[in-house]
């Protein structure tokens, strides 16, 4: 884990130092993560530029969700480096990460049972200006408006998924970490989410998308990372997608 040193020093060189990276927003280098004693990530490297959408693909258990959690600081232990807009996130408390305008939508959705839809929506504090207003959110997700007073967990799976996403749009987060947002959803809602993602992209959000549903992710992404056993085993740019499909399918075990 010696590579940790480099990015950390980069920060101390001031703004000029990371200017050189261009408009890079997130860079993960040699990231290791552990749950208790099990070592799950074995050195992940990836980067995301501002306004980009990347996906993390891989089979169940390959470590995609863990990568997102590690960025947020939700794993037991992590080492390596996670630079976000010039800030080192390793060692930072999760709420500080969020305050840097990182929004996280967990795979289990994390809708709070004791709270109504609207309370769920209003829960995260505003961390930056430029987030969507509650009004705008209800325009995007009219279902939520209808159900705004019912307990969050009474919503259907699809609605819960929308709520989980909507919740981070309000806070003004610029980097969205979205974990399996199409999981278990009806095709029509998946389609809807696809539109939302496009909308967000057009508004300049930067997105890291973890997906099983490759068909959903493929047209949206600028770049794909394929993970296996906690390592990035393949990187595919949007342009190379067609040529590498077979290889990809083999990796994903389809």
């Amino acid at each position, binding site marked *: 884990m010696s590579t940790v040193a480099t990015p950390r020093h980069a920060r101390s060189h001031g703004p000029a130092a990371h200017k050189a990276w261009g408009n890079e927003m997130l860079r993960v280098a040699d990231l290791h993560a552990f749950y208790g*004693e*099990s*070592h*799950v990530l074995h050195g992940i490297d990836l980067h995301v530029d501002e306004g980009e959408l990347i996906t993390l693909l891989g*089979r*169940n*258990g390959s470590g995609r969700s863990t990568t997102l959690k590690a960025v947020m600081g939700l794993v037991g232990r992590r080492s390596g480096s996670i630079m976000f807009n010039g800030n080192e996130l390793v060692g930072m408390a999760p709420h500080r990460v969020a305050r840097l305008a990182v929004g996280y939508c967990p*795979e*289990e959705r994390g809708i709070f*049972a004791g709270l109504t839809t609207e309370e769920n929506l209003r829960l995260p504090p505003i961390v930056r200006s430029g987030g969507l207003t509650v009004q705008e959110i209800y325009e995007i997700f009219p279902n939520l408006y209808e159900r705004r007073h019912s307990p969050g*967990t*009474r919503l259907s*799976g699809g609605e819960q998924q929308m709520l989980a996403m909507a919740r981070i749009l309000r806070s003004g987060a610029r980097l969205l970490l979205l974990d*399996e947002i*199409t*999981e*278990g959803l009806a095709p029509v809602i998946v389609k809807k989410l696809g539109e939302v993602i496009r909308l967000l992209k057009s508004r300049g959000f930067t997105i890291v998308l973890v*997906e*099983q*549903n*490759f*068909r*959903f992710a493929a047209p949206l992404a600028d770049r794909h990372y394929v993970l296996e*056993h906690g390592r990035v085993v393949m990187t595919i740019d949007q342009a190379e997608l067609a040529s590498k499909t077979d290889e990809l*399918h083999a990796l*994903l*075990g*389809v």
Partner: protein
Amino acid sequence: MSDYLLETRGLTKEFKGFAAVQNVDLKIQRGTIHALIGPNGAGKTTVFNLLTKFLQPTRGTIFYDGVDITRDEPAQIARRGVVRSFQISATFGHMTALENVRVALQRRLGTSYHFWRAERSLRVLDDQAMDLLEQVDLGSFARTLAVEMPYGRKRALEIATTLALDPALMLLDEPTQGMGHEDVDRVAELIKRVAAKRTVAMVEHNLSVVEKLCDRITVLQRGEILAEGTYAEVSNDPRVLEAYVGVEA
């Protein structure tokens, strides 16, 4: 004697109005390895919990060997010969590997309440325990505390412990989870070996393991059975591809 060692009818589990498992009719054939797959949250672990009575079903019945066991206590189920492993490794941390296995063997002695007896009385089980450890390649770890063992070894130990009960039906919840390649292969081998004489049901995400080991596969989605069949059948089922793999074939 029915063909099916385990059978559920209309098995349903609701958590506060949310149905984690709905109307599941699961049939596990004697002497087979049966896999339960499906997306996260599909209800696989919940099904296992219901089968072993860690959870009470909201509705439905469970038959084991033709007997209705829906109302049994967890320990009773285990004594009938249904033994499970856990999704997160479940060993007895501050006991040695040998003791882990021995505790399982010990039940047969019927001395589990004998607080006045010496531990020495358990030595008769040591050979058998060693045997089981050897079976899972843990012979050299016999005197190691379980907490100090690497993750993959712990899962192997868990399987050895399960085997110690000589179960008729083994329920394995993601036995290869969190393992490296080598470990996965070893454990898969192991399962194949131990399944020779018994019935196994397993939850597994690693499809290559499933393909290699399993005779029959049930795919769960949102608490319901989506498809059932051999690996070939299931993996070509468009619904499965859509729901589980996420790609249209």
